[in-house]
């Protein structure tokens, strides 16, 4: 028999309820815009089938659908649902090229990114792409450019150090950065969108690939995110 007091049970239930509300609030926020976009685009095409011939509209439909899929995958992976973990075999990858590609795929200009050094990793292509997507997304969403990515290899590990200048992080932000659906003070105060799953996803994928991730405050404001993955 548990000797938990009724007051303690009540406190724990209230805490669980607060977590449930926070999670549903964050997910609701994150899904609403892509859902509204998808519905709107489908309605436009349904009312005017000729619109389906406009490439920019069909491209937007494909992008929005993929984005919803990625949001769902992020939640599943960050929640440790192993069935959604990437399955591609590890292979040797040039990290300079991979980082540059992730930056361009995020729609960013070349001058916003500085790559220092070089490194090769032995990792599944889809896991690496997913990790880099979130590193770039966090840097673009919360920081200022240029973002510096320092690459190197040591002790059998390839190191990706992403230095993103931005608002100063407080202790709670650093402590809770890997907590699922946690959003930092700067993100909340600036009213930026986001779900608070990026770093938990990076952590889960890095671990799945035999690596690690850590963050620290950047001197002068901002964040340093360090991902280590097996070197070839």
């Amino acid at each position, binding site marked *: 028999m548990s000797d938990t007091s009724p007051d303690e049970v009540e406190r724990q239930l209230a805490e669980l309820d607060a977590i449930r509300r926070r999670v549903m609030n964050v997910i609701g926020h994150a899904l609403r815009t892509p859902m509204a976009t998808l519905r709107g685009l489908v309605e436009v095409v349904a009312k005017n089938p000729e619109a389906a011939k406009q490439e920019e509209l069909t491209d937007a439909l494909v992008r929005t659908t993929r984005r919803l899929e990625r949001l769902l995958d992020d939640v599943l992976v960050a929640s440790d649902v192993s069935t959604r973990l990437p399955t591609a075999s590890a292979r040797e990858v040039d990290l300079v090229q991979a980082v540059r590609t992730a930056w361009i795929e995020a729609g960013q200009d070349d001058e916003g990114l500085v790559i220092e050094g070089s490194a090769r990793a032995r990792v599944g292509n889809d896991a690496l792409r997913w990790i880099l997507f979130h590193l770039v997304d966090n840097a673009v969403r919360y920081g200022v450019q240029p973002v510096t990515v320092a690459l190197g290899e040591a002790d059998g590990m390839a190191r990706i150090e992403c230095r993103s200048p931005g608002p100063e992080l407080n202790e709670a932000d650093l402590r809770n950065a890997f907590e699922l659906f946690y959003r930092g003070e700067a993100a909340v105060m600036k009213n*930026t969108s986001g779900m608070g799953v990026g770093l938990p996803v990076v952590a889960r994928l890095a671990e799945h690939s035999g690596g690690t991730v850590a963050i620290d405050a950047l001197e002068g404001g901002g964040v340093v995110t360090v991902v280590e993955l097996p070197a070839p």
Partner: protein
Amino acid sequence: MSDPLSEPLRIAVVDDDFDFRLLLRVQLDALPELSVVADAGDGEEAVDIARGEDPPDAFVMDLLMPKMNGFEAIDVIRKEYPEIGMVAYTAVAGAYARDQVSRLGAELVLKSGDPTDLVEALKRSVEKARSAS
């Protein structure tokens, strides 16, 4: 500036979501009473549009955006150009957002609603802004 009763309202749409911005452009441009003349991806760009040579009659403004969010942009533009109508167009709005938007003198419409709600809010906001300025 156009007369809201006789000419299409000239609208600027501001949203950090590229695809949602594209959708808004297509939806609003299809309406005879509106014409989308500019778009922007954050509040700073919105302020630049308002300060430009040919400012719009009204803004459709997302609230959650990088660099400068919608609350800040509405505040800056309303103070400098009170004759420009302002509609906050947001995915989710709690009590805080509703209070803030109301305090800033803007209309608020949810993205999940019918686009005609947005059109009506744009017309109301322009008429209100012009009569107050």
